[in-house]
């Protein structure tokens, strides 16, 4: 399904590309061990002001632990966490200018909605009138006016989530940490809430760090994603970069669907011009051509990462191409509504994935099961990965 | 996790209290079990005189004796008392299990709405005076009490039997008083039992009885063990029930201790009896502690 495609207002230079910009939050070689195993290992990253930053990864990859260390609920075994250049290590969680929205919402059951939202403000000993004003603001922000006197057990899941959000925003933290905030919502509500979160973040100009295992969510909301695997950082980049320029097979495989073809780089042949890129030989898909070498040298074994939607599938053999062209038989079709996902068994026995948008409303698709087809793709469609 | 410095009192206050009022007394019992009786106040010797310094301490240690333990070991009365206590406790616990398990099982199987009420019904007698309840049984079991009147009326007996001052009365009293201690841990475990396991057993061909033996019973063992320990250990040292309902032919160890202390006024021997009792009960107590610790950790 297509995501709502909200694009943040364009900035002159994204902060992470601006070498003069100082990060709001910096992690330096942060590690944490639990019972002998490394839950977080040597993680270093920068988060800039105004970012919607996502920590993405499978369960157990350490992303939640990292978030908790930012909040101060756990402390790193080694490494530093700096906010505005100052080390947060001696600062206990109740004095950090960061606030967290918990996965379970953690609303205080013995307090009503207003008191929940006001809780953090009361700790700061603000004047009562100001607290009341701020609470009213928050209720308006999350569209829960009139719910002030209700207790958490009288609210629906979505309403509780909004109260939790309002409570964590009430103190206007420098950074808002969100721990899988949408996990408990159903799909439609999740989509709407993602949209609302992004609008909120842009309007308020705050910095959000969200932890999620849902790739689509990360790709939708985040300005940059940090992909984590088993405690280590795999890649940090914008969603398009993560998707189109993964830096490893693991990242390529983790995000979306991908064809990973193992191949050997061939030496440059005679009469081949530089800009034509490199030529590779693969056992599964024949001769391949890639526009960029991805840092590889002749003779190396590399992997070609090719997204299914970049693969053209046709009944007839494509005219010009000699490379990046294979024949096979369709062995399965997945109808997903907006696209059809084809699995094609090549002559080598290997199965390749191709995806076509369903552009027309036809009961009978042009390409059906067991059809013999040709798969082809341009040289710049694939990424060469050396690891 | 290190204990934050400012939070130390949270641990220290109960710790000190228990050290003073629980641990220290046991050490004192141990010490007195190694002393002799004396016509004095306090009625034992030696008494540690702190002012006498190191010499005082030496004299103190020299005067300690294991005579009391020798005395207990030599007199058949005490050994019989221990054995009888263990025997009575074992049988009582078995009876409690036989009566308590169906009760707990019935409670666990009852509709959810009823369970809090049933739970309260089991707990309610526990809240009323323990003494009262034993007294109620005296009422029923005495020579012209209700039980005999019913039996006579139904012509089940010709002459009213003597229920009181017998082992039977003691068993009735024990079961009556300790039933909540058996039922509650059992109920807690049975209530958490996943009924789909029993359904799976039935699906795989087990009759209800077999499903009970092969699935329910093994899974209820933790609660069962807790109930057994919670009943057996205190029953061994029980005093009131055998005193009021039992006969005087042989005493349980709790009664022996009481009479040794209050009637014979022989504190050292009473202390020795207590120490030996504690040693006898130590294995099951440790088992119970380990169960508790595992329960908390898990």
């Amino acid at each position: 399904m297509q995501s709502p495609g909200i694009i943040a207002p364009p900035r002159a230079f994204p902060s992470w590309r601006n070498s003069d910009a100082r990060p709001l939050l910096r992690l330096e070689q942060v590690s944490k061990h639990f019972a002998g195993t490394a839950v977080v290992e040597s993680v270093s990253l920068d988060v800039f002001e105004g970012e919607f930053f996502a920590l993405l990864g499978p369960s157990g990859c350490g992303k939640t632990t990292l978030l908790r260390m930012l909040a101060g609920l756990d402390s790193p075994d080694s490494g530093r966490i700096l906010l505005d250049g100052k080390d947060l290590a001696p600062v206990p969680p109740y004095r950090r200018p960061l606030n967290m929205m918990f996965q379970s919402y953690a609303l205080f059951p013995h307090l009503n909605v207003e008191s929940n939202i006001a809780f953090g403000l009361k700790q700061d000993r603000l004047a009562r009138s100001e607290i009341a004003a701020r609470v009213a603001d928050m209720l308006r922000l999350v569209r829960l006016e009139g719910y002030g006197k209700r207790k958490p057990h009288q609210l629906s899941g979505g309403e509780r989530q909004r109260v939790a959000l309002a409570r964590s925003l009430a103190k206007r933290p420098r950074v808002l940490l969100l721990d899988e905030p949408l996990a408990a919502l159903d799909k439609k509500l999740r989509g709407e809430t993602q949209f609302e979160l992004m609008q909120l973040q842009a309007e308020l100009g705050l910095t959000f760090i969200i932890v999620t295992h849902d790739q689509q969510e990360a790709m939708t909301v985040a300005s940059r994603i940090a992909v984590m695997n088993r405690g280590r950082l795999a890649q940090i980049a914008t969603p398009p970069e993560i998707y189109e320029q993964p830096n490893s097979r693991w990242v390529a495989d983790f995000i979306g669907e991908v064809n990973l073809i193992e191949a050997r780089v061939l030496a440059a042949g005679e009469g081949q011009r530089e800009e034509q890129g490199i030529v590779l030989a693969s056992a599964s898909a024949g001769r391949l051509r890639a526009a960029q070498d991805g840092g590889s040298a002749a003779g190396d074994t590399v992997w070609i990462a090719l997204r299914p939607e970049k693969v053209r599938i046709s009944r007839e053999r494509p005219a010009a191409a000699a490379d990046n062209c294979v024949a096979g038989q369709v062995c399965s079709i997945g109808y997903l509504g907006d696209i059809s996902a084809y699995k094609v068994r090549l002559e080598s026995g290997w199965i390749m994935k191709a995806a076509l948008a369903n552009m027309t409303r036809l009961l009978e698709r042009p390409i059906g099961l067991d059809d013999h087809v040709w798969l082809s793709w341009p040289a710049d469609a694939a990424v060469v990965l050396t690891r | 996790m290190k204990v934050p410095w400012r939070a130390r009192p949270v641990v220290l206050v109960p710790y000190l209290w228990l050290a003073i009022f629980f641990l220290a007394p046991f050490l004192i019992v141990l010490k007195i079990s190694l002393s002799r009786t004396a016509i004095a106040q306090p009625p034992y010797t030696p008494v540690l005189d702190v002012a006498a310094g190191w010499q005082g301490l030496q004299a103190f240690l020299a005067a300690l004796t294991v005579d009391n333990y020798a005395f207990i070991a030599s007199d058949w009365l005490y050994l019989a008392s221990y054995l009888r206590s263990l025997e009575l406790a074992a049988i009582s616990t078995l009876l409690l299990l036989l009566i308590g398990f169906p009760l707990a099982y019935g409670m666990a199987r009852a509709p959810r709405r009823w369970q809090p009420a049933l739970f309260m019904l089991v707990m309610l007698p526990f809240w009323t005076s323990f003494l009262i309840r034993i007294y109620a049984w005296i009422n029923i079991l005495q020579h012209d009490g209700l039980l005999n009147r019913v039996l006579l009326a139904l012509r089940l007996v010709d002459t009213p039997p003597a229920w009181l001052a017998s082992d039977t009365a003691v068993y009735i009293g024990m079961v009556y008083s300790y039933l909540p201690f058996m039922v509650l841990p059992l109920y807690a475990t049975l209530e958490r039992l996943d009924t789909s396991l029993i359904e799976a057993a039935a699906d795989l061909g087990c009759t209800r009885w077999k499903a009970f033996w092969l699935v329910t019973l093994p899974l209820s063992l933790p609660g069962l063990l807790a109930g057994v320990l919670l009943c057996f250990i205190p029953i061994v040292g029980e005093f009131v029930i055998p005193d009021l309902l039992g006969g005087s032919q042989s005493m349980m160890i709790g009664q022996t201790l009481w009479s040794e202390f209050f009637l014979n006024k022989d504190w050292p021997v009473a202390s020795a009896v207590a120490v030996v009792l504690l040693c006898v009960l130590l294995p099951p107590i440790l088992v119970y502690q380990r169960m508790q610790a595992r329960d908390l950790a898990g």
Partner: protein
Amino acid sequence: MLRLSWFNVLSLALGFAFLYLPILLLVIYSFNASRLVTVWAGWSTRWYAELLNDRAILEAAWVSLRVAVLSATAATVLGTLAAVALTRFGRFGGRLLFSGMLYAPLVMPEVIIGLSLLLLFVAVGIDRGFWTVAVAHSTLTMCFVAVIVQSRLLQLDRSLEEAALDLGCPPLRTFFTVTLPLLVPALVSGWMLAFALSLDDLVIASFTTGPGATTLPIRIYSEIRLGVKPEINAICTIMLAAVGFALVVASLIAKLQDSDQSLRAPGGRNR
């Protein structure tokens, strides 16, 4: 839930009958005009009237009541501190000994506890009386309170306390504003249990009491040894009524609180 089989119903019925029959008889006979149990002479409240004239019993009841309130309160405070220490402080030094000392009274025979406390008081030279009984009862009942509070603490969603920390509440204030209000049902039932145990205790009170501090169970016990007396029936019925009333009140309070709050994390389920 599976339907109750006839066996279940029978065991429930028999079990509860067994539990309640003696008490019922006691209550009925407290209204018996005749002194003898064998003869039913009609309804009468004379034993209650005679009870009011029995100074010894009334004084003993007053002593018991004061001891029970005092020791229950002390036990609740101590037991709660102990439970918090065991559940929130992780592995601290001496934890094993601490939990051992805390849970031993649950299973230890009361004669041992009573004897050891008496010997302590004698060795240190403290006169036995009201305060020694109160201290003894506090020590005994604090472990029951600790068990109840501890199981409630373990059920609590820790993220509630973490959320409070995150919102700027220091740990001590978090305990008082977040944890404690949620613990109230456990504290109440702990207090009530400690109260009932203290009111009811005979053995430990016998060991640790002194002149002028005769508790009700001690008095009742000495009367019982002399034989069955109807005034005993009367005071037992009164105690039953008092406890029953207190329990009903407590469960109503608990019901009100329960419908108000849920201890489980609200966000886990999307209803």
